[in-house]
């Protein structure tokens, strides 16, 4: 069984069925065509999207509904075709596709954000992925991960 080195974990064994093909790569990483999704109980609900070819490249993602429970995915014809999905209906998140957003952990005191403008969408049946830029959506590419409002204690 082939194995790959990972950025956040040890070397792991992979099978063909754990590889996801991104025919266009990701914006900024166009050459990265294969990723593996990893999750661990101790880092729930974070997901790790590890490049199969570049051990140093790993994205941290969150399922979109964890961040935005009413998130609306509107895939145009080009995106549906790219994901090999039927053009007749929008895919159901969690059923037809995995929809997750890339977390920017920032650091240096900056609060973490997620990119709601451009979610990673994966056709679960054919294991094809695409980062879809939802131009008309009005979603932010730097949506604060933690609500800005302070919690008010009950008294």
């Amino acid at each position, binding site marked *: 069984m082939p194995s790959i080195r990972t950025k956040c974990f040890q070397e792991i064994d992979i099978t063909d*069925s754990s590889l996801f093909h991104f025919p266009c790569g*990701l914006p900024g990483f166009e050459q990265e065509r294969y990723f593996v999704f990893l999750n661990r109980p101790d880092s*729930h609900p974070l997901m790790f999207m590890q490049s199969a070819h570049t051990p140093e490249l790993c994205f941290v993602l969150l399922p979109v509904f964890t961040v935005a429970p009413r998130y609306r995915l509107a895939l145009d014809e080009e995106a549906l075709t790219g994901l090999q999905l039927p053009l007749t209906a929008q895919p159901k998140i969690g059923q037809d596709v995995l929809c997750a957003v890339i*977390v*920017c*952990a920032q650091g240096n005191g900056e*609060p*973490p954000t997620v990119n709601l403008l451009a979610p990673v969408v994966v056709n679960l049946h054919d294991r094809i992925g695409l980062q879809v830029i939802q131009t008309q959506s009005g979603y932010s590419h730097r949506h604060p991960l933690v609500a800005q409002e302070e919690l008010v204690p009950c008294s």
Partner: protein
Amino acid sequence: MLVMRRRAGESLLVGENIEIQVLQVSGARVKLGINAPASVVIVRREVQITQNENRTAARSVNPGAIESLLNALPALAAPTPEPEKCQDFDESHNLGLS
């Protein structure tokens, strides 16, 4: 910002070598044609935003950042019952398929 009014079929020049032509206007959409040397990179603005955001996000991944993320997300990270097979790392590669 320089503002210019153009109709379909008209064009404008940026420098010596770049021509941007308005091909079609329909409703809220404008179709543009661009003639430029191959060395000039042309991307949609939102693609560039996503490229930059992806690069920043990739750089931000390290063990310390992941730990502070988990600490910052007590609500999201609240322990939920994990399916039995998620306990085994090797079985948890296929998110969504498992």
